[in-house]
């Protein structure tokens, strides 16, 4: 059969190297390159990226050098120590515990939970949505009933109940508990796009080309909704920082001996702290605001890069 093609085309094996080199020169830049040039073209986003990455690395590494149980010991001498002193850069709280150190360990805990939660719930939600949308029919119907059931459960209450029932929990168990309830939104979003995408002819073409269903789902359809996935993941990440924070603030998140951004912000429950001892809660609040803003900036750039048509930076 190969002869058949030889006969009707002038191209032979001898031209292969030259032609593929020529083609290489004309090639469109890879996705990673496009993303990078997109960041270079957008300075605020570049700054945001550095803030996020730098901060996450800083707290992850910094927390390793802090002895948490010792840090959390009450120190009467330092009761509401003023900030900007050599020993307490950001002052101390009512227990005389260093706010700066708590902020580092607390950020590590909160961000760690948010990252874990985003990875688990998004992966699950994306797979669920892709499979449900692609197979349409009975599989979709069954999966959607499970989704409906999960949506019926009052989420916050279920989490609070689970947290109270489980005797010993830490950030890992908490991440898993949250994950049970946070994949639904993603799955719905992904499913609706997959439904539309699966109708397109390139999916039919892949099927007549002999490609398997799983390969079509994850190698053909998924790249085409990557911009949606990226935006959804960044937004969920920003949102997930809030999830843990909110529950800890209400007193149902991490135990109070484990510092987190939520437990720190709950210092603001005390009217005295709000006005007089602002350093106990303000840094954590500012940190959340800055982080969430930076994340959404980065998300925008990633989306632009993923939508090849929308790119600014790449010279095309």
């Amino acid at each position, binding site marked *: *059969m*190969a002869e*058949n*093609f*030889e*006969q*009707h*085309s*002038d*191209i*032979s*094996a001898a*031209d*292969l190297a030259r*032609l*593929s080199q*020529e*083609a*290489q*020169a*004309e*090639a*469109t830049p890879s996705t990673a390159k496009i993303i990078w040039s997109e960041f270079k073209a957008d300075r605020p986003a570049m700054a945001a990226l550095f803030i996020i990455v730098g901060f996450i690395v800083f707290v992850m590494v910094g927390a390793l050098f802090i002895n948490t149980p010792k840090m959390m010991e009450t120190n009467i001498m330092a009761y509401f120590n003023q900030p900007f002193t050599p020993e307490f850069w950001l002052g101390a709280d009512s227990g005389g515990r260093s706010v700066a150190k708590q902020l580092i360990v607390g950020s590590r805990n909160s961000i760690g939970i948010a990252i874990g939660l985003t990875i688990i719930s998004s992966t699950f939600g994306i797979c669920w949505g892709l499979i449900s949308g692609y197979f349409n029919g009975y599989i979709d*119907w069954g999966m959607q009933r499970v989704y409906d059931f999960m949506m019926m459960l009052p989420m916050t209450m279920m989490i609070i109940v689970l947290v109270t029932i489980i005797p010993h929990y830490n950030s890992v168990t908490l991440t898993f508990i949250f994950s049970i309830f946070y994949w639904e939104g993603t799955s719905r979003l992904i499913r609706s796009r997959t439904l539309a995408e699966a109708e*397109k*002819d*390139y999916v*039919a*073409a*892949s*099927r*007549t*080309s*002999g*490609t398997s269903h799983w390969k079509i789902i994850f190698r*053909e359809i998924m*790249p*085409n909704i*990557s911009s949606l996935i990226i935006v959804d993941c960044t937004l969920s990440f920003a949102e997930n920082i809030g999830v843990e924070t909110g529950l800890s603030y209400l007193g149902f998140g991490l135990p109070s001996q484990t510092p987190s951004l939520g437990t720190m912000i709950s210092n603001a429950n005390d009217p005295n702290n709000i006005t007089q001892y602002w350093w106990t809660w303000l840094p954590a609040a500012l940190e959340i605001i800055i982080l969430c803003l930076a994340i959404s900036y980065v998300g925008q750039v990633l989306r632009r890069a993923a939508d*090849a*048509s929308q790119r600014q930076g790449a010279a095309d």
Partner: protein
Amino acid sequence: MSLIEIKDLKVHYPIRTGFWNRITDSVRAVDGITFNIEAGETYGLVGESGSGKSTTGKSVVGLEKVTSGSILYKGQDITKAENRRKLDYNRDVQMIFQDSLSSLNPRKRIEDIIAEPLRNFEHLSKDDEKLRVLQLLDIVGLDADALYKYPHQFSGGQRQRIGVARAVATNPKLIIADEPVSALDLSVQAQVLNFMKKIQREFGISYLFISHDLGVVRHMCNNIAIMNRGRLVEIGTRDDIYNHPLHIYTKRLLAAIPETNVNQREAHRASRLAVEKVYQEQQSKYYDDDGEAYPLVQISKTHAVALPQALAQQLATQEGEVQA
């Protein structure tokens, strides 16, 4: 033996409603059609929008779940997925899609798009595969630098060529061409059709050429089937259909071909109005009480029409007299 034999093919889409998703009704997209495609020929399937042409085409490549009936290839019923797998069916039967943009994955490079069927069916070495892709690009008249580009970087006509290259990659025996040029403008249409013909000659491919436009089909097809509301209303050779149409639906489709000769515009318009008048007045004669087409009756060896026997004979003799 014909290359493909389609027997009483039916595709009904269930309409589901309610919480339990029960089937309450169905859309009869294809409702009992029978025809054969011979090796090396171009078979035309013509009908207006919604008549079930694409559904038929998709059933033949195995994309559609068939309600009943059979499609025989090498003596096996390929409406069963298991038989398709056994035969490596899609290696021999491929499809060109109507919308070239949506039929090419926007996130994949041309090399990967054209190589997809090769990777699944032929398992060539990396160099052989690349060589084959380059040859295919050459055959459809594209430069080698298309290799690492993405579909959006090409024009509609170029994209349709890429679609053709992918379809011929495994050197198939039959290609379903679902309105391959209806999204292209006229000059490009002719180009694409011409090299589809060229490829047919060189590789001995059969086409099932789907179109709503009898004007285009005339240049491509030896045998033509006219489809109306999921059924075939007339089958015949090019001569049968264009020169001796019997069914009113065929006549209407013919009348709808735009007349390019300015001097005959008036006459063309008059004949179109006459056909339309007959259609309005005599619809009950041509369709049964439910408004559906009759079963086909054979008029000559090649020609069949969906009419009651008596009417068919009467029209055939009339048509014969006009010709005489």
